[in-house]
């Protein structure tokens, strides 16, 4: 969603940043407020002299409006600024920076992302050292034997006129212990070698699964067989994979692929593509057509090739709000580290399981198009008295107004509080670093 189509959004953002009303800007550049409103909502194209005049009044380089900066790049920069607690970062010129120095901006966001990854690696390594029972036990064994050897050796070295009988005994002990020490050290080295410890794979299992799904484009032709579930096919697929390294990641991927296969059995690919060709991508309509529950259809639509269903994104969380799956979508930024926004339909659906939501939403503070979000939460296990809520909430993201004619004005939601400019928000957790600018 880059390019001139969202020049209007950028004008709106810059105007709001400048604290200017629509009518004032319209008057300054000599057009009507209603025409400016159409431009700002990307309903009218803008170019040439008018663009230059608007850029002049807003005091920005025209290229900032006409080319704009890659939205994800800007979001990445905001995230970097937010996480660093850095005072004195010129947040109001973040788009200009990204627009004028895209290479540097990319380097900065990449560096920041790498930083976050490394911090996580350090955390998981520390965790391993502190909580790994095998490691603790091995070290204890080695230290005990070292103590015995040290003690025995110093008796042999320091005791004058040690009786021959004692001497023989301590020699034997030291010999035994040195063998044990060699074995202990060897097994420790073997363990450390074999453990997932090399730099590349100290990712969270979730990261591994995301990389795996992404590498396949979230679509698995070999699981699309019409005869339904067949465990072997999932195993074959996983056996060929090189991205999933940790056991937990394999387990998660296994579950996702089994569910995928079951979904594909209930909603076969070819009939689904034909149905989409007839009536478009309306998840509720399609779910009814195939006689399946809505979550099944949302998963299915998220895992179709994009030429069949257009671009889609998917977020899945459990009842704690923890994201358990994330298929990225261009116009909707999600940061696992920084936390999410409670205004997302994903979380509203949690409060009313089995009631679907369909909303046009737009992330505040980002020069992006609105998106269509379809969300629903479902119980995934039978209810028991006083038990934990076993729910999964799904939110499918699609391009604006896709599949369903919605008159509703797009609703503003956040990305995560630190970088969210929405001023009057009752759901806010912490102050925003972007609010000073307003």
């Amino acid at each position, binding site marked *: 969603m880059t390019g001139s189509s969202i020049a209007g959004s950028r004008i709106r953002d810059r105007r709001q940043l400048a604290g200017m009303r629509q009518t004032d800007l319209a008057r300054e550049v000599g057009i009507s407020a209603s025409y400016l409103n159409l431009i700002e909502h990307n309903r009218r194209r803008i170019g040439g002299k008018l663009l230059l005049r608007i850029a002049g009044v807003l005091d920005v380089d025209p290229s900032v409006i006409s080319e704009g900066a890659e939205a994800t790049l800007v979001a990445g920069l905001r995230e970097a600024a937010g996480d660093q607690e850095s005072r004195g970062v010129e947040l109001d010129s973040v788009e200009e920076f990204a627009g004028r120095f895209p290479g540097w901006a990319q380097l900065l966001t990449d560096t920041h992302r790498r930083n976050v990854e490394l911090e996580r690696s350090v955390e998981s390594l520390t965790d391993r050292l502190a909580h790994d029972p095998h490691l603790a036990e091995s*070290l*204890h064994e080695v230290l*005990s034997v070292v*103590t*015995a050897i040290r*003690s025995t050796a*110093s*008796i042999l070295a*320091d005791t004058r006129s040690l009786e021959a009988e004692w001497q023989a005994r*301590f020699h034997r002990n030291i010999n035994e212990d040195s063998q044990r020490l060699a074995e202990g050290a060897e097994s420790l080295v073997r363990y450390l070698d074999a453990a997932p410890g090399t730099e590349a794979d100290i990712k969270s299992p979730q990261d591994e699964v995301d990389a795996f799904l992404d590498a396949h484009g979230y679509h698995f032709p070999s699981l699309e067989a019409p005869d339904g579930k067949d465990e072997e096919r999932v195993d074959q697929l996983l056996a060929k994979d090189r991205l999933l390294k940790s056991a937990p990641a394999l387990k998660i991927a296994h579950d996702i692929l089994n569910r995928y296969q079951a979904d594909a059995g209930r909603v076969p690919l070819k009939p689904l593509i034909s149905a989409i060709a007839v009536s478009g991508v309306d998840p509720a309509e399609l779910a009814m057509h195939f006689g399946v529950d809505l979550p099944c259809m949302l998963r299915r639509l998220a895992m179709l090739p994009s030429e069949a269903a257009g671009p889609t994104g998917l977020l899945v969380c459990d009842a704690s709000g923890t994201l358990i799956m994330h298929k990225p979508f261009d116009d909707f930024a999600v940061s696992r580290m920084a936390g999410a926004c409670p205004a997302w339909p994903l979380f509203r659906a949690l409060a009313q399981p089995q009631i679907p939501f369909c909303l046009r939403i737009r992330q505040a503070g980002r020069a992006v198009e609105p998106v269509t979000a379809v969300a629903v939460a479902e119980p995934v296990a039978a209810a028991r008295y006083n038990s934990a809520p076993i729910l999964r909430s799904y939110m499918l993201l699609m391009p604006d107004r896709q599949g369903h004619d919605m008159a509703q004005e797009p609703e503003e939601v956040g990305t995560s509080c630190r970088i969210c400019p929405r001023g009057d928000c009752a759901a806010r957790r912490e102050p925003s670093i972007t609010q000073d600018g307003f």
Partner: protein
Amino acid sequence: MGNTVLLIEDEPNIIEAISFILARDGWQVKTHSNGHDAIRAVREHDPDLIILDVMLPGKSGYEILEQIRADPDYGEISVLMLTARGQVKDREMAERAGVSRYMTKPFSNADVLHAVRALAGP
């Protein structure tokens, strides 16, 4: 104060080495090598000082120390604790349980002798 030391430790060659150096220093050394009935061993041997390993089969050194401190006859006895991990958390746990002195493996024979003599008093 008498001169009986009870060594509660499960590593046979450490038992032998420590027993040897303490015996040479003039101590009566009794040994016991598991956690289950350590407190019974204390009553049976009636020691003047206890050397207690933290990692024992059956019961941890901290639990045994708590039992000793709760015992009407041995609540005040000096206890030297041995551990293979020198982490702050371990030290804190030992101190909370009422340890008299704390030593981290691998220690030297001189360390042990020094600690035992210091605990025995002048």
